[in-house]
């Protein structure tokens, strides 16, 4: 039996982004979320190098968001190693900072959904920005703050829900 393709189930296009519940603006273009299991290949001498199983030993959850609002708050969000300097982000601190100290709950809400409708939201419980923010100055009207977040383990949560939640509608 063929299953019909319903485009409304596909999360794409711009979204609104929240950091610790505070809106930090919309995105320009698609948001890319990736949840990669970290696998350990299991082999047995009696079967040679052929895999007999894969053991999940971790998860790397990443969300790349092109923030459309070029404001200092978003620059600091994308560059957590920088410090607030009043009207600028000061870059160049001594080493040793732990990004986890500035972790935020990152929630991506597709604009195709009503504000109160969280049925397609993606949430990283403790997100830190690890990507180098790229600020393009070639087009004044289209300056983005590209931020790539990785979800850290939140030990305050229960087994199975340590890193992220991916909401998606059920098939009718």
């Amino acid at each position, binding site marked *: 039996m063929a299953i019909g393709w319903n485009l409304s189930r596909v999360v794409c296009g711009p979204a609104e982004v929240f950091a610790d519940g505070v809106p930090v603006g919309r995105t320009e273009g698609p948001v890319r979320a990736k949840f990669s299991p970290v696998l*350990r290949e*299991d*082999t*047995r*001498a*009696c079967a040679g190098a052929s895999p*007999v*199983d894969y053991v999940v030993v971790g998860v790397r959850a990443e969300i790349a968001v092109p923030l459309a609002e070029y404001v200092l708050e978003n620059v600091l969000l994308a560059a957590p190693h920088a410090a607030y300097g009043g009207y600028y982000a000061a870059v160049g601190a001594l080493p040793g900072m732990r990004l986890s100290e500035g972790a935020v709950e990152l929630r991506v809400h597709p604009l195709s959904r009503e504000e109160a409708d969280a049925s397609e939201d993606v949430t990283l419980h403790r997100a830190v920005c690890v990507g180098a923010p790229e600020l393009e100055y070639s087009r004044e009207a289209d300056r983005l703050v590209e931020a790539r977040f990785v979800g850290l383990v939140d030990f305050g949560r229960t087994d199975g829900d340590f890193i992220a939640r991916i909401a998606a509608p059920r098939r009718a």
Partner: protein
Amino acid sequence: MNAVVTLSKGGSSVSLPAPARIAGAAASAGQAMGRTAGGEVYAYDLGTPRREAELEFRSLTSAEKEALAGFFEDDASGMQETWTYTHADGTVYTARFVQDSLTFVQFAHNVWDVTVRLELSALID
């Protein structure tokens, strides 16, 4: 071919995933060798030839780790007792641990590696 191996003694038995690697299968003549002051080599037979194997078990669960540790301590009494080892190919060996401790290395939560050294009744295949 089986994907598991079994360690058993009396009414106790432990099944583990087959070793990921046989790190060594040794055939020992069971001899000691030395040299005289004049440089002449001498060798003595100390007993029957020995067959040993070094088995690397990978990605054991915590329950499998506990079961193996319990078998080592309680059923085999470390190196004291012999017991029955059934290999992945179904071959049955009389076995003895030739180490006084098992060192489990944690790769991740619920994922453990251990290397076991055994004296066996025949060369392992």
